[in-house]
């Protein structure tokens, strides 16, 4: 696989002590390169693998500790976002996936990746029913694709979110409205599976925006399964790795410069990826 977005100097892949991360690609997933970069920056050893190479047995999930399904537009969102890709995974990879999640391994699905995990029934998998669809990411209230920044407040417990209180990251989706029946919602809340909710924080105040960008029930932006190891989130933390990705960086830079403070290097999304990697280093 060509990886020209990552310059040769970053391709330090010989170090076997680094946790190994597989980032899936194919059929219209499109955030694999920046997701790879986020994990590399956090200390991971990362491969982008086309789903058909997994299906053909050219690569196995066994060789990895973290599986990331990145954002994108798999199958153009046709028949419902994430549905077609989830079908393909279920048809060909189901056993490999259930073996993977039985072990002490982590899974993250971002945006389209979250929609795929929801359709695969890996989230929230209440009553241990892995494989049953229990939640949905429905059309935004505006029925329109939207790209903007949001503020997230974290709760619950999961290796992915240790030590994170609030972060600001972008969303970019047309079908991101978290939906579950009342019964499922009760259990999700009761079991504390909500990982992050939209709230009115730094970025919303900066741009005078509503906290909840899509009408998500209970303002839910991210959840985990009961084990906490499988995380699905609509926002894109991999687009909030570097300081200059923030919408307000030019203002912060000007303020800090005048206050004599050093200019930040990172944006806050990287913490999620660092947590994923740290889980295997402790």
């Amino acid at each position, binding site marked *: 696989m060509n990886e020209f977005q990552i310059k040769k100097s970053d391709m330090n892949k010989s170090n076997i002590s680094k946790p190994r991360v597989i980032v899936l690609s194919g059929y219209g997933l499109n955030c694999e390169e920046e997701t790879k970069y986020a994990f590399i920056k956090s200390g991971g050893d990362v491969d982008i693998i086309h789903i058909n190479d997994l299906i053909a047995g050219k690569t196995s999930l066994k060789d990895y500790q973290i599986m990331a399904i990145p954002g994108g537009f798999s*199958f153009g969102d046709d028949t419902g976002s994430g549905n077609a890709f989830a079908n393909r995974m279920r048809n060909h990879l189901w056993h490999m996936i259930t073996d993977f999640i039985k072990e002490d391994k982590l899974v993250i699905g971002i945006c389209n990746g979250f929609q795929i995990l929801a359709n695969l029934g890996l989230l929230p998998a209440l009553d241990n029913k892995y494989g049953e669809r229990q939640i949905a990411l429905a059309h935004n209230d505006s029925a329109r694709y939207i790209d903007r920044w949001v503020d997230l407040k974290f709760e619950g417990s999961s290796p992915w979110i240790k030590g994170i209180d609030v972060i600001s990251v972008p969303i970019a989706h047309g079908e991101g409205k978290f939906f579950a029946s009342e019964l499922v919602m009760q259990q999700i809340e009761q079991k504390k599976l909500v990982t992050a909710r939209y709230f009115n924080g730094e970025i919303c105040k900066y741009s005078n925006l509503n906290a909840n960008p899509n009408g998500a029930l209970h303002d839910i932006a991210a959840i985990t399964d009961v084990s906490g190891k499988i995380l699905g989130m609509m926002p894109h933390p991999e687009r909030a790795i570097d300081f200059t990705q923030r919408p307000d960086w030019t203002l912060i830079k000007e303020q800090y410069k005048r206050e004599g403070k050093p200019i930040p290097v990172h944006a806050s999304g990287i913490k999620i990826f660092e947590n994923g990697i740290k889980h295997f280093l402790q």
Partner: protein
Amino acid sequence: MVYRIEVFSTIPDMRARVRLKKLQAEKFFVDALEIVDVYTIDSSLTLHEATQVADILSNPVTQKTIVRASEDDTERLYSDFNQVIEIGFLPGVKDNVASTAREIIQDFFKKKFSSGEDVYTSQMFYLKGNFSDDIIKKIVDSLYNPLIQRASVKSIKGKILFTVPKVKLTVKPSVDIIPILEMDDEQLAVLGKQGILNPDGTSRGPLALNLSYMKAIQSYCKKIGRNITDIELEFIAQSWSEHCKHPKFADPIDEIPEGLFKRYIKSATKEIRKAKASEDFCVSVFTDNSGAIVFDDEYLITDKCETHNSPSALDPFGGSITGIVGVNRDTIGFGLGAKPIINCYGFCFAEPTDTQPLYKGKNFTQKMLSPRRIMEGVIEGVNVGGNCSGIPTPQGFILFDKRYKGKPLVFVRTLGIIPRETTGRKNYEKKANAGDYIVMIGGRVGKDGIHGATFSSEAMDSGSPATAVQIGDPITQKKFSDAIVKEARDLELYSSITDNGAGGLSSSVGEMAKESGGFHVNLEGVPVKYPGLAPWEIWISESQERMSVAVPKNKWNSFLELMEMRGVEATIIGEFTNSGKCVAEYNNKNVIDMDMEFVHEGLPKTHIQTQPKNEVYEEPSFDVPSDLTPSIKSMLARNNITSYSFISQQYDHEVQGGSVLKPLQGRGCVNADTTAVRPLVNSQKTAIISHGLNPSYSDISTYHMVACAIDTAIRNSIAAGANLNHLALMDNFCWCSADDPVRMAELKDAVKACYDYSILYGTPFISGKDSMYNDFRGFDHEGKPIKISIPPTLLVSTLSVVDDAKKLVSLDAKIPGDYVYVLGETREELGGSEYYAMVGEQQRGKGYVGNIVPKVDATKNKKLYEALSKAITEEIVSSAQSVHRGGIAVALAKTALGGMLGIHINLTFIPGTVKRSDSILYSESQGRIVVTIDPKKSQLFEKMMGGNIFARIGIITSDSLFKITDSAGKLIINTDIKTLHNDYTSTFGGY
């Protein structure tokens, strides 16, 4: 067996809610609306299997399904509703959701559909309310486009019919001989204009070959001693088309034997490159599908801008999605394949509030879509095309003029990145070699897009495919794009690649064959969507999402294996040769057999004569309003100035993780002129992109229109932190009535300005495109004949590369107390300005034009821009906003709105020669930028700007007031930021 699976929502369906609101806003009194998605499956599945299909095509958490196996099925949804409208595609129109459904079904049963089995989608709109037939018809009209879709209306109790829009072609494909040798001039002219006739007497579509072209073909036929085949004639028509050969730029014109392109554009780039010597950053200009310049030591950055105007007038969604996905292929088809990294858009529309209908046909037939429909469809097309492809779309504009009512302009632009070399092989060069297989990858060939935008007026009934319109399929393209630029290229599995765009295979294979010296194609080997296509149709079809690749024989197995692994169809359709011949066979007979030289070089030149225009406009005369507050409020709400954040927000501008300067900037989310992206996630190197266009100046002078467009595009870039030494330009000419000597005189002036100003700024053109006939001929709302021509429009696009993202500057004022400066001189230059347009509309219902158009002093400006660039590099500029449409007042408002901070300005200090306050505020003199500076840095800044015209004119405040004082000390504008923000954002608030 035909099954019909209906998927309906069990939770509030926001698509239906939003659609309902829209209908209600259009005063259709609909009480309730629900949408049901329908999959019609024509296959050998059992009922049980069809039920399984219903499960995998829907989501049990939010949806339920009905599976119907017979039209007699009586189960009904929403039985308390009144009407149901069903909308599906016409036969042969690309149905992307159906393709995905087919793939899901095949993957689930692990069994391919057999020939003739397929899936078709449609949507049912259930309506509740009391409707007259007339209202229902209007609602249906607002929901579908008869060019590509079918609609049926039923009462709720009506029978649900199964519609299978399968393509059925009854005519047996054949090759006709055209008796060109026996034709006289008149017959030749008719054939060239009307095109070849079908057996039933209808035309296959225009060839657009004028008499001199037809005579050249006739004499070639005499030379080879035979008549021409229909496919050969269609092939020549494509190869010699306006789109491929650009005769208005290539042919001799007046005293210029080498033509406008060579004299003014190509030579300017050549001279600039020579002058830059070792600093020359151009690598590939005017030769490939995109232009390419240096990005860093390892990479090149490519750029290309296209238009897709005529198709967008007919099917706005299809036209614009095909445009954006098509220009992506100019990136994938650059060199050996560049990766698309940035999309840009630019739309010129008529006012969306204009509801007077236009007709293509006499007697109120063939009604055109309304400006609002066109606008919405075009915006949606780029949304789906760009978002689905995973390419950020940060940069763009919308512009309004009533003269875009017949034909909107849809500019689409894509930048790409490509490593210069892979193991020593230069990736920006390519050569198909004799003996290489000709391979077609991606989609299949159908009747879609035959003869491009020509649209048959014949009614489309079941069985006759819609030919004129194409709909892009970004996912098919994404699959091969990834397979090519992320894998096959670096495995060196092919030797050349190009896009199948206009002209289809005839153009891509024809062009690539120049590299090897000939081709031999087997037309029966070309994969088709359905049987029955004639050879000429296969050869020129513009079915989307295809590329042609030259694969060496010893690489074929590896290439095919990789494509199959990535879900990409790849087929050998022939071989490149060095025979000097273009050969295509069908049924073991050569149906094309012509010399390469004739096909590519045989077109005769026409000497173009021009005739200068002499028009003087009424010079507006009105008093200066004593209170100018209402004027700034109105200006900010005008279509050409107001916020279009609803577009910026629906286009993903952050995918690929490189966003630096976003389309909406500052607390006030002001639309920026310039955006910036880091294409490599681990490098600070940044691409800065912008644009300039001023079609309203064309009425007065196309020369100055172009000069201003170039200056605006450069100035916008400089304000964000671009580097004039590493800045390239692209030109997109959209003209009208190109056979009119007056329009050609305007073109000549315009192209000359390209030369003059690119040389003065030292900024080379690296790629360009033209679209010469943007005229509409039809009938107005009273049925009277009407011709609408666009104002001559040049879009200038800029690309600059800088080292450090962290040094770029956004437009928003940052900190109260900062000084406000204006750089550059303000002159009495309001000809063609937005202010004149507004005042004229207010006073007499029609905008003023005036005569004093802004003129560009490039030498002065260049010095100023270089000084500002230095100040930005040294990080002493805290915000910068270029002054363009709407003048200084608008630039100041954007600065303040960006920061949601107050601003106090004294007009006296604004340098220039203007007396009238309103002229100072709204003159559109070029070469000006508004900046804000930390007071502690002001001395340093003033020193750095020394020798240029500039002045401190005011201060940023925390009081949220927008105050401008005139020379007498009188407050002429006094309002607050919240009010102005409301004015700035309300026009398109409901869009």
